[in-house]
């Protein structure tokens, strides 16, 4: 009954989306007011209905209602409640329902609060939003129904992949989905602006919070996903250039570029065509990401269902939306008047470099990700990995950071280098000191060395915009920029240190043996069996001493889950401010010794701290923009009120 209720809510929401599309269409064509009046309420009620459907799905998962196919194939009665609930979206159908919910809620929010754009543009935007949603409703209802019943009812469910029974794995998909969907809202604004020929700074201001929000969630989702892969897979790496990881990185790159170009459009009314183009590209990347991950074209922990029908469905949606948007862009691009001009040496000029470099990196990642699929069509199988991605993308990323040193200091429109010279020289000298200091001390690879030097220079430069300004009166968005740029430096430092300074030790040990790895002495004390709620494990009890200091305990496990039957390695981590000790317990050798793999990874945690700082910067900026908008709205309301009183 609960499942049917959820399904009915979904159908109703889809019908409302259709109504919203018709109403918006009528509105843009100047049609009947009755039909137009329905658009905003339709969007709001849709949000409520899809939310209800999602709650119903969580309910059947929490109760482990095995008569629902999705529950039977993905859940199990003996599983911690938290993972039963997160199991609702750790599968294909549930995650697509989550996508639709987030989309409907965003649509409802715009319909409810956004009043700054001309009504026609707003209607066109809501119409575009309804059009995109309809595709996903169709996908959900016709090929991925999460509420499908199963008869006869099985005695027990198949369980959730143990790799996904994890807190980071429960947080990572919603983060990415919020990001993807946020970009779909930006896309709707772009389509609305193009349709009604209204590409203005106001359009950029209205779109910006959505891009910022999407970008914050993408940043967090990628950071969580990377940390999950790092400790859960037990390979000691934090980024594998796996197509699935690239699928989340590409929308992030596009959103980062869009964020910066939207700022130019909002502040200076320049880069109009380019911003519109980026809006289309950013959503295309979300769709391509979804296609790569969900079509089963790739084999991975994310490819829940290898089902060509679904892949074709998403491919068709992708072709309709992106093809349509590009056609609209081609038809309307010539009608977008040229924006304000600017000198090369200006804030705009630096942001153009940022955009070009980000687009180049995006292209490089996209080519590298799709290349194996292309060659496979010709019968040649290849894999593209770090030897391609690292140097090729770094050749654009590192120059971009050089511009990042000076860019935020430049004034809009026109500036001279002499004005910012002092700060830039300071930052560059710090970078050079690190370059030669570290270069002389240790023979490191060229990329890590450049990374460390640039990280130092960018860290110093990130705070340069604060010089000579009153910190208490500094607007929040400036704080956001400073912190996000500093986060880039922190992350880069972690990446460079991890790749250059990591020490690895692989050994077969018996109880009592001590292994040295970097500054650590690790003693294997004993091997014990342990049990958890739905698993048993062999645990290696170890004591680790840093530089002969106090012993700290460390207990990596080899776990066996029984539903579904699967073995996983649980790595153990010891965190210090300057790095992490990473331990994995392997197999028992024939002579009774145990394989132990240890890594000392200096400053590796800075990678994720940097990611969090970047997201925090985005959050501050978003808060600043939203409170600014609210204050403006309040002021306008007061003026209107006073005006009204004066008239009466």
């Amino acid at each position: 009954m609960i499942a049917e209720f959820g399904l009915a809510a979904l159908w109703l929401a889809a019908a409302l989306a259709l109504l919203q599309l018709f109403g918006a269409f009528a509105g843009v064509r100047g049609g009947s007011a009755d039909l137009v009046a329905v658009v905003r309420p339709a969007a709001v009620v849709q949000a409520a209905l899809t939310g209800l459907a999602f709650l119903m799905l969580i309910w059947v998962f929490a109760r482990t209602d095995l008569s629902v196919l999705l529950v039977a194939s993905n859940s199990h009665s003996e599983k911690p409640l938290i993972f039963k609930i997160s199991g609702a979206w750790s599968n294909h159908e549930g995650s697509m329902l989550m996508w639709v919910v987030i989309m409907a809620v965003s649509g409802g929010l715009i319909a409810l609060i956004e009043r700054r754009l001309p009504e026609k543009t707003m209607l066109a935007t809501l119409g575009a939003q309804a059009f995109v949603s309809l595709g996903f409703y169709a996908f959900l209802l016709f090929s991925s129904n999460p509420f499908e019943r199963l008869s006869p009812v099985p005695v027990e469910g198949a369980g959730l992949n143990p790799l996904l029974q994890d807190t980071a794995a429960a947080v990572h998909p919603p983060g990415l989905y919020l990001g993807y969907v946020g970009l779909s809202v930006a896309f709707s604004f772009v389509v609305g602006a193009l349709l009604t020929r209204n590409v203005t700074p106001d359009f950029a201001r209205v779109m910006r919070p959505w891009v910022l929000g999407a970008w914050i969630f993408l940043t967090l989702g990628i950071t969580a996903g990377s940390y999950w892969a790092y400790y859960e897979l037990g390979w000691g790496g934090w980024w594998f250039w796996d197509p699935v990881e690239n699928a989340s990185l590409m929308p992030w790159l596009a959103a980062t570029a869009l964020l910066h170009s939207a700022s130019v459009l909002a502040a200076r009314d320049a880069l109009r065509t380019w911003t519109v183009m980026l809006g289309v590209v950013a959503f295309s990347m979300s769709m391509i990401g979804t296609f790569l991950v969900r079509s089963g074209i790739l084999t991975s922990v994310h490819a829940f269902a290898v089902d060509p029908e679904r892949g074709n469905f998403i491919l068709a949606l992708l072709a309709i939306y992106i093809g349509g948007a590009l056609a609209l862009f081609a038809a309307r691009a010539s009608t977008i008047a040229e924006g304000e001009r600017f000198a090369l040496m200006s804030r705009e000029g630096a942001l153009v470099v940022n955009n070009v470099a980000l687009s180049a990196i995006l292209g490089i990642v996209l080519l590298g990700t799709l290349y194996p699929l292309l060659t496979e069509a010709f019968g040649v199988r290849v894999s593209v990995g770090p030897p391609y991605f690292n140097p090729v993308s770094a050749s654009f990323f590192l120059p971009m950071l050089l511009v990042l040193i000076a860019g935020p200091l430049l004034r809009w429109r026109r500036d001279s280098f002499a004005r910012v010279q002092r700060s830039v020289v300071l930052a560059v000298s710090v970078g050079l000191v690190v370059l030669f200091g570290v270069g002389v001390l240790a023979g490191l690879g060229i990329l890590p060395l450049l990374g460390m030097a640039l990280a130092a220079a960018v860290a110093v430069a990130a705070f340069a915009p604060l010089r000579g300004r009153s910190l208490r009166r500094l607007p929040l968005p400036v704080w956001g920029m400073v912190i996000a740029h500093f986060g880039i430096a922190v992350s880069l430092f972690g990446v460079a240190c991890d790749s250059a300074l990591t020490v690895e030790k692989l050994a077969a040990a018996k109880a009592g043996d001590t292994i040295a790895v970097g500054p650590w002495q690790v003693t294997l004390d004993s091997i014990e069996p342990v049990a958890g709620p739905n698993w048993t494990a062999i645990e290696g009890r170890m004591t680790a001493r840093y530089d002969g200091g106090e012993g700290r305990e460390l207990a990596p496990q080899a776990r066996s889950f029984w539903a579904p039957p699967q073995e996983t390695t649980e790595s153990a981590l010891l965190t210090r401010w300057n790095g992490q000790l990473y331990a994995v317990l392997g197999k028992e050798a024939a002579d009774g010794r145990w394989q132990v793999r240890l890594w000392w990874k200096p400053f590796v945690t800075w990678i994720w701290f940097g990611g969090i700082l970047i997201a925090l910067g985005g959050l501050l900026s978003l808060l600043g923009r939203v409170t600014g908008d609210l204050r403006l709205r309040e002021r306008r309301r007061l003026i209107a009120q006073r005006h009204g009183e004066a008239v009466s």
Partner: protein
Amino acid sequence: MTARLKPKHQRLVLVIVALVAIIGAGVLAAWGLRNQASFYLLPNELVADPPAAGQAVRLGGMVEAGSLRTDADGITVHFIVGDGEAKVPVTYSGILPDLFQEGSGVTADGSMGADGVFHADGLLAKHDEKYVPRELKDMTEAQKHQVVAEATE
């Protein structure tokens, strides 16, 4: 000099810079893909046309039953990957993946050594039928069973 440029020319310069950068990215990517992409090979392909020693390739096949042995150091393993037609000796130092076992599928990243042994830096093993190595996915069911049967004999 740039300070003397007219705004229109400055815009042109920007467009040219952007174009050069994008074309540069394309060229760089093409070069990188030609040189850095590693090929997926089945044992018979690897034996028929061996790659240069040290060139990164990815080998996929079945771990032959009874071929797995461990060195005295407890961490270096040797095994044979076969596809029913050819066999390739593989050596690997490290912890074997959870699902790694004789008679099941494996994908090994690494390169051929001058000694004719495949040196793997990384192993991926999937034994669920959903996760047969990509190389074996295109075989018919009968072929697949034959390979598995031969490997597990």
